[in-house]
């Protein structure tokens, strides 16, 4: 068995209301360090994790979204966004802080089936 696993991180939660989104990002960084084949997908409220224009300074919480932009440095380049989730929230690809590929439901189903592991956050 290969040491490299195909791992999908499925981001389904908004960034600050729960710890899921932050933990998902942490997991990506850890697994990236072990040179695994990482795919990140943003669906449902997960798309809010990569929305432009967040300013958390007044709320007194940390904006961890800039980290999504440096994942390329960890050779993590497979980022996808669910088209329906994005459009339902009034967002377009231009509203996102990363150049994630916008894909339809069928593509996501196919991507999921190709993985060794799908981890939900």
């Amino acid at each position, binding site marked *: 068995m290969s040491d490299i696993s195909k791992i999908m991180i*499925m981001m*389904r939660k908004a960034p600050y209301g729960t710890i899921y989104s932050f933990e998902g990002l942490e997991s990506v960084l850890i697994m990236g360090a072990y040179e695994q084949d990482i795919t990140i997908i943003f*669906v*449902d409220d997960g798309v809010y994790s990569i929305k432009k224009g967040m300013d958390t300074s007044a709320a007194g919480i940390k904006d961890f979204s800039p980290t999504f932009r440096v994942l390329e440095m960890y050779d993590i380049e497979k980022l996808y966004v669910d088209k*329906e989730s994005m459009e339902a929230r009034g967002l377009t690809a231009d509203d996102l802080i990363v150049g994630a590929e916008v894909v339809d*439901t069928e593509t*996501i*189903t196919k991507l*999921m*089936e190709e*993985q*060794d*592991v*799908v*981890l*939900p956050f």
Partner: protein
Amino acid sequence: MLHLVNRSPYVSTSLDSCVKFAKKGSPILLIEDAVYGAMAGTALEKKMESIMKDFTVYALKEDLLARGVTNVIAGIKEVDYTGFVELIEEHKPTTWT
């Protein structure tokens, strides 16, 4: 792939997202609060029956019992912890939480 859903369908979109993205024909196992979706005679029964046309739906017996859900929608398969393990052995699992 085995799709585990653990949130009540009355408060969460977990089941909806599962059904949206899961490959047709896949097994869906309702556990924890998701088993409320398996109860017959509810506002969600028709939706569950529609889901069952595309997926094999299971509900975890121990969680049904714990919540007093005894009238399960016909066609939903009840599995116990042993059955849960058997499903995991057959399919790669993921969770919709």
